[in-house]
């Protein structure tokens, strides 16, 4: 199997879909890997490293012509049109505008959407959502600490005592838990908040306090471990709980999300105005609209002496390790798709089936793509 690695073209996207290390593992299994020149530069993987790993460095056209093309984000329509007929494309395909997919399908390209890896134990090592959320949770705290006009840890000094910062983490999924851990490492007093009952123990297992919204827990979790969208009345309780806690917080990391839905609104303008001067909100959910009413995706908003960050490129901001993890996920997935280098797309397979958006000219999973 010949694998092509594309250089990303989206703005601020510094990741690469396959690192030299991951590529080397695939080559060992019998594949050949063609890497577009400069693909890893943004993530600090120089071309030389790919060469050393046994890849061939190629121009973009050649990378596009591989049997299987991997990229972090789905390539532009222009590049997609250059894919080989019957090729397989593995990439994130979020926010699918329909058209691009249709075009690919027209060329009978098999499209495997990385964000659709099912969250079963066996597929954990292929799950880019988890790995990139880990980066996002860590990085959100670093960005928050940078934006804060104060220390996170407690400090008793000759120039007076610095009280520890209070951090509030909304949503205790993968990113939220990582944020909790990172903020605690830096010495903040951390409170975690989630609607899923199982989150309480997980938050406490990191040494943080859990804030339980009244009368919501229990039925807020789907079978897959995700949160459901809440009924009006429940949503009200959640808002009350957040409102009660946010006034004390110096740093808020908002990571609440519901799959395939806009992010739940948890922080209203009034709540922002009740916060202490100088406090900071990092809205990790900005991409899906943000947990905060005032969030503007990709921008930094100042409101009532509160700073609201809406970063869109959290994992891409830490491209070296984000790519390392992404690449490892992709490599494990390819090992699964093509054991010993021979590619077969088996739609009955639990993982492949769930990921596949287009195959042999047929679109799949339209309803919840």
């Amino acid at each position, binding site marked *: 199997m010949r694998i092509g690695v594309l250089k990303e073209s989206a703005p601020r996207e510094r990741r690469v879909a396959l690192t030299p290390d991951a590529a080397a593992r695939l080559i060992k299994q019998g594949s050949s890997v063609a890497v577009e020149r400069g693909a890893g530069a943004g993530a600090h993987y120089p071309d030389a490293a790919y060469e050393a790993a046994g890849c061939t460095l190629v121009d973009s056209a050649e990378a596009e012509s591989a049997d299987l093309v991997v990229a972090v984000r789905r390539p532009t329509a222009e590049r997609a049109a250059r894919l080989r007929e019957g090729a397989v494309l593995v990439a994130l395909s979020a926010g699918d505008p329909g058209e691009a997919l249709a075009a690919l399908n027209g060329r009978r390209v098999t499209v495997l959407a990385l964000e659709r890896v099912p969250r079963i*134990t*066996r597929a*954990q*090592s292929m799950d880019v959502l988890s790995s990139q959320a880990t980066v996002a949770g860590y990085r959100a705290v670093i960005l928050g600490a940078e934006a804060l006009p104060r220390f996170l840890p407690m400090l008793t000094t000759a120039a007076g005592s610095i009280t520890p910062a209070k951090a509030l983490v909304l949503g205790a999924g993968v990113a939220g*838990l*990582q944020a909790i851990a990172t903020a605690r*490492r830096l010495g903040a007093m951390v409170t975690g908040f989630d609607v899923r009952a199982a989150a309480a*123990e997980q938050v406490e297992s990191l*040494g943080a306090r859990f804030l339980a919204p009244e009368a919501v827990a229990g039925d807020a979790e789907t079978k897959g471990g995700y949160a459901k969208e809440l009924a009006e009345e429940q949503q009200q309780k959640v808002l009350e709980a957040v409102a009660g806690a946010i006034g004390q917080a110096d740093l808020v990391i908002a990571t609440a999300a519901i799959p395939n839905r806009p992010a739940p609104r948890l922080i209203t303008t009034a709540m922002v105005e009740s916060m202490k001067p100088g406090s900071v909100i990092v809205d990790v959910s900005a991409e899906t609209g943000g947990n905060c009413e005032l969030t503007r995706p990709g921008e930094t908003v100042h409101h009532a002496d509160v700073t609201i960050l809406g970063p869109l490129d959290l994992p891409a901001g830490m491209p070296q390790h984000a790519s390392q993890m992404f690449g490892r996920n992709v490599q494990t997935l390819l090992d699964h798709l093509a054991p010993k280098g021979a590619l077969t797309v088996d739609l009955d397979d639990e993982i492949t089936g769930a990921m596949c958006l287009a195959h042999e000219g047929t679109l799949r999973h339209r309803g919840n793509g």
Partner: protein
Amino acid sequence: MIPHVLAELGYLLASACFIVGLKRLGSPATAPAGNRLSAWGMLIAVVVTLLDTQMVSWTAIVIGLVLGSGIGLWMARTVQMTSMPQLVALLNGFGGAASVLVAGAEFLRSELAGEAIPPETGVVIQLSLLIGAVTFSGSLIAWAKLQEVMTGKPITWPGQKLMTGLIALGIVGLAGWQLTDAASLLPAFYTVIGLAVVLGVLLVIPIGGADMPVVISLLNSYSGIAAAMTGFVINNHVLIIAGALVGSSGIILTRIMCKAMNRSLANVLFGAFGQTAGTGGAIGASSEGLTVRSVSAEDAAVQLAYAQQVIVVPGYGLAVAQAQHVVRELADLIEKNGGTVRYAIHPVAGRMPGHMNVLLAEANVPYDKLFDMDAINDQFEQADVALVIGANDVVNPAARSDPASPIYGMPILDVDKAKSIIVMKRGMNPGFAGIENALFYHPRTAMLFGDAKGSLSALVSEIKAL
């Protein structure tokens, strides 16, 4: 014959050997020497007796000595290491029998010679007979249960307790009659012995095979008392001293053993009647009829204290218990004892990527002691102990072997290759994946139940106390 004073001093020396020997038996470093010292004491006692007593005939002595030593040595040499407890039971029973015979001989001699037995001598003879006989038959039953000659399950029937009580009463009555009535009462004498043998059987039969070690220890204590009573009968101090020592230290040992099993002595002896086998049984049996082996912190501590290579496998339970600091403390302790400790971190242990790293970093566990799965998996075979702390799915062999399992295909930590496995968790609850874990039923696995933090603290204290 030697002067009696010398004999007394010889006996005193023998007693001192028993005392010091017994004390030394209590700690691993000194136990072998202690046992040898006590054996010397026994030799001294025998020699002194042979020199001190007016021996009318030597035949019986020689026959008995040769026979007894030969059989004893042969049994000790040939017994399987795993059958030790039943051998001890058997030997103990012989000790009881010897007491019965000595006291019986004394009784018969006076009786047949028409001598009046003074009441206090009568009492001690009766006690010697009674306790000796109970020890004898009880020990034989214990042996039979352990040897699986009879079922190891408790044998009970309605009215059993009443029956036992009646027999005991009968013995007391007959013995009293014998004492008060000066006339020769040979039938009563034999009846008492017979009833005592039955009593021994009745007392042990309702106790389960797993509890036999405690029963043997108790019977051992009895046989000591029987020996002491024999000492009263023949008015010999070394018998009294040695017997009393064994009697009381045996009680203490019995209590220690019960405590190690987290049970009371009463529960061991009469537990079967209540029909509740305690908490142990409730979690003991899996759906497929396999059993888990539960271990006490004390026991686990000994294993860890003497282990050369320990691999700690932390899981979500460690995080829930927030036991990261204690685990570090335990590791430090093991290393101070000369062992090495490494941590095997499974990629998905815990509930978020890097969960275990966060915890262990907090406890300042050096990075070079953390190993990921690929690096450590072939090290388990050399590990003396794999200490699984609140991990479940990540050590579930079903991932390797059972294609129907939801975790099939996930690489796991090969803890089941370790020489011994200790799993710490609160109960038999499944982990995240919600499935049973065959590791817990593995023959080399011992479960240390309880909150991980509490269990780890207990281990630390126990190791320090060793």
